[in-house]
């Protein structure tokens, strides 16, 4: 194929500056969404793993709801429907972060729960005979081991989140996907912009998988 690439449309001061802002917003939305997701995941995994009566059913409902519906539908619902029903007005940015947080939190909850229940009874017994309270055992013995075991699965979710954050472009959050689309509309050069976009997503996510391997090596646990 004789397509003539014209990278000058990407590599000019104006476009790069705009794209740079987009990268910052992508990072921001991903980071805030992840922070919310990690907190939600951990907070909901503990009662579920401990089979706390009412709380664990609530968590189950939450997890299943967010696992079984597409994140794109959730995003639109949170941005357009939720404000009408609840009277709470969310900015597009807030709606994006909230959706990403709720969605990744549901997946992380299951991952953390799996990690928690994978720690054998022997560890709990040992903590108990040493006189540790349940909370101390959880904090110092169970959770640190569980986190190490689930690290690869958690990193998977982190990578998915960074990529899924591109969906916020449809509610006009000016992330890098949004900026790329805008640039395409102006220049009619989709090949260059979508290629560049893919490369930047790769550059953002690949370090995460490198980091994961490094952390795994650092915490050598049987």
């Amino acid at each position: 194929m004789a397509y003539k690439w014209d990278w000058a449309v990407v590599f000019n001061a104006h476009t790069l500056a705009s794209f740079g802002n987009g990268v910052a917003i992508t990072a921001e939305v991903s980071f805030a969404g992840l922070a919310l997701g990690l907190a939600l995941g951990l907070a909901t995994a503990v009662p579920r793993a401990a089979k706390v009566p009412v709380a664990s059913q609530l968590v189950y409902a939450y997890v299943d709801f967010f696992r079984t519906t597409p994140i794109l539908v959730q995003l639109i619902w949170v941005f357009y429907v939720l404000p009408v029903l609840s009277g709470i007005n969310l900015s597009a940015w807030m709606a994006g972060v909230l959706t990403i947080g709720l969605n990744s939190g549901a997946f992380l909850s299951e991952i953390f729960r799996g990690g928690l229940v994978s720690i054998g009874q022997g560890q709990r017994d040992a903590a108990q005979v040493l006189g540790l309270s349940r909370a101390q055992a959880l904090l110092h013995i169970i959770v640190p081991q569980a986190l190490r075991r689930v690290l690869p699965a958690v990193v998977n979710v982190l990578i998915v989140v960074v990529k899924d954050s591109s969906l916020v472009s449809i509610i006009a959050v000016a992330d890098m996907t949004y900026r790329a689309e805008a640039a395409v509309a102006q220049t009619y050069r989709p090949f260059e912009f979508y290629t560049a976009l893919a490369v930047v997503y790769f550059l953002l996510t690949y370090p995460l998988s490198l980091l994961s391997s490094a952390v795994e090596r650092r915490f050598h646990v049987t």
Partner: protein
Amino acid sequence: MSGPGPQGPAILLEGVCKAFSAQAVLKGIDLGVACGEVMVLIGRSGSGKSTLVRCVAGLTRIDAGRIRVQGVTVQDPAARLSRAATAEAQRRVGMVFQDFNLFPHLRVGRNVSLALQLVRRLSAEAAEARAAEVLARVGLAGFRDRFPWQLSGGQQQRVAIARALAMRPEVMLFDEVTSALDPELVREVLAVMRELAEDGMTMVVVTHEMGFAKGVADRVVFMNEGVIAEEGPPEIVLAEPRQESTRIFLRHLMEA
């Protein structure tokens, strides 16, 4: 050591019953362990000996009866117990497990010092000093910065003993602590336990090591199907058992 004084046995079980989903495992156990006594519990698997020590350690709740540690009731389904008093008495009991149960994410020194800081409220320095002391006592002075997986099974089990000893227990429970070890590693663990016995530690030892029972036990208790079938000094129970069930068990052990 703040000894319990003359007020009675270190451990006292009265009519202790435990069932797991309708399967009776302990059927009314009455048993006392005197201060400084080394009691060896023998019996085939499923006879209830591990359940018995787990009940004393507070890991398994009993269905009926009463367990006292140095005069303080730690389990009694029929009574309302003060949680604080129970916890305090339970802390005088240390336990070592078949599978070591070291904390794999913590170095050896931290395995030992963690509970000293969290439970005994020692400063980091005091906890480390105490950890070094007990690790030296089990012959592992230079192992503080290793991880459990870098140690042999025998060394891991000695760390587990040190971890329990660090808390200054007045009673030590050993639940088949050499069963998961290669034969050549059994000796180093038994040697540490023998020394503890010589130092006057009150010990309840579930084991299949008849040599240890013969050489170290003050009393051997043979359990069969949830009851104490026979007890007495090792030279009687192991050499001239009165019960047929004891004779059969010992013969099977020899043949194995």
